[in-house]
């Protein structure tokens, strides 16, 4: 090994060590600062429990909306070539680069009582700000690109001849989508959904602006952490943070397992036998 090579690998090692330390230390610190018994106590506190429920409910609803609307849109953008497709893809990615506070203000300006659609909504007796619907909208807005990006990429990288074959063999468009495209893109879709869910769980800025913060209704876990911190209750803020870390990490691990399992039982021969069974 040449001296310069050795220097390079030492430097790489140091870089990696610094990086892992930087990511892991704050997470470890949360758990080291809160004794496990306190953590369990906090789980029984009304604030933490309410925030957990609001978080789980609102993120799941947001995720369903993202997947139901995002999947066909991503399919269109990933499989068809048409003018403006690039622009549309960029629009879907916009929330990714917008600061969440901008998202919150934008939602107010559009769906607030005096927003662009405020009059129309009021005519139907609907007021969105400060409701759980507002939480879901803020989460969906901010988390959407995390799913759509992955989904577009997954659909674009499919073997398009399989789609063509499916159509040639007489499967309709819907059947091709559900029986061929979805199974083929499955892993990318799972990964995207996991990322979007994780992002939604951590959402703060857009939510607090557009939905406010009310325990049991609009106060999600990150909002509860902020509120506890505001009051100087560092211990409780840390405990709720630990809860959020556990939930998010559990989610990440769960999806990893799911994706790995998915890749195991979809060998290529199986895939083709599936698509040929379409005509049966």
């Amino acid at each position: 090994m040449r001296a310069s090579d050795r220097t390079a690998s030492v430097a790489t090692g140091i870089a990696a060590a610094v990086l892992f330390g930087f990511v892991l230390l704050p997470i470890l610190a949360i758990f080291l600062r809160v004794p496990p018994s306190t953590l369990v106590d906090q789980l029984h506190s009304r604030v933490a429990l309410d925030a957990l429920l609001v978080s789980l409910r609102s993120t799941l609803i947001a995720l369903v909306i993202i997947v139901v609307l995002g999947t066909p849109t991503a399919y269109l953008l990933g499989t068809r070539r048409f003018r403006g497709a690039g622009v549309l893809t960029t629009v879907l990615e916009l929330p990714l680069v917008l600061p969440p506070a901008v998202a919150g203000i934008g939602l107010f300006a559009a769906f607030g009582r005096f927003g662009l659609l405020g009059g129309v909504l009021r005519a139907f007796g609907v007021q969105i700000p400060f409701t759980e619907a507002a939480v879901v909208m803020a989460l969906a807005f901010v988390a959407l690109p995390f799913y759509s990006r992955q989904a577009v990429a997954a659909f674009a990288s499919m073997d398009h001849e399989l789609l063509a074959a499916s159509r040639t063999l007489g499967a309709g468009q819907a059947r091709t989508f559900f029986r061929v495209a979805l199974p083929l893109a499955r892993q990318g879709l799972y990964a995207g959904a996991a990322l979007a869910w994780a992002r939604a769980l951590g959402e703060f800025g857009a939510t607090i602006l557009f939905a406010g913060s009310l325990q049991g209704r609009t106060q999600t876990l990150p909002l509860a952490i902020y509120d506890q911190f505001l009051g100087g209750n560092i211990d409780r803020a840390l405990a709720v943070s630990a809860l959020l870390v556990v939930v998010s990490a559990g989610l990440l691990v769960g999806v990893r397992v799911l994706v790995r399992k998915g890749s195991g039982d979809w060998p290529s021969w199986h895939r083709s036998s599936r698509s040929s069974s379409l005509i049966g």
Partner: protein
Amino acid sequence: MRKALSFSFFIVLLMAACSESSASGTRLTVLAASSLKNVLPEIGTLFTEEHAGVTLSFSFGGTGQLAAQIQQGAPADVFAGASTKYGDQLASAGLIDPYESFCTNRLVLVVPSSNPAGITALLDLSTKPAKVVVGSESVPIGTYTRAVLENLNGLFGPGYSEAVLGRVVSNEDSATSIITKVESGEADAGFVYVTDALAAGPKVQSIPLPSEAQAVVIYPIAAVRASKNATKARQLVEFVLTAPAQQLLEQAGFGPPPVP
């Protein structure tokens, strides 16, 4: 290798640039309650005019949050809160000097100038459907609001505060965000400090509270014990009690310090 060296040199330079100590003069960091956002920088300007070489940087936030920052050892020179509760906490922990009470404040109910819910009196809050925003219990404006509502029970009957709190759609992190939501008309009513209502001007209508229901809002100020510029920090604290500073506070709607 040389590149790596010059890169690390660059990093060191960057860190030096980020650290506090400027080559010339003193920089004082003031941690102050959000409700002081409009007036304290003005007082600061007067102070720096008299003290050449001193620059002030302000960090505004919830008083509890500021207290927590001081407890965690955040670099700060002066603490100016909106509640003596946290002043007492910090002082008894020896983290700040014994504090001076430098001004007082009162609460008021504000509604948007368009007044969509038709709230014209305090009693309307418990009888008309309205979206009410208040401060979170974690911030002083929230605890004061709850104290005021308790006091109003004596006037309007025991169910009043419960009825009003039942109409709360958001517990906000500061009086500033309460008034923003009322100003924009997204919320129908909110309890803020009179100083916030004054700063908002004609965008809100104020409904005053009877004096017997008012909360006692006292603002403590003190130098932080861990300050590296303790002398200047104490000078700033004293300056806030002088006539020119008190005049600015009065113009902003704050009351005089309590008579001891």
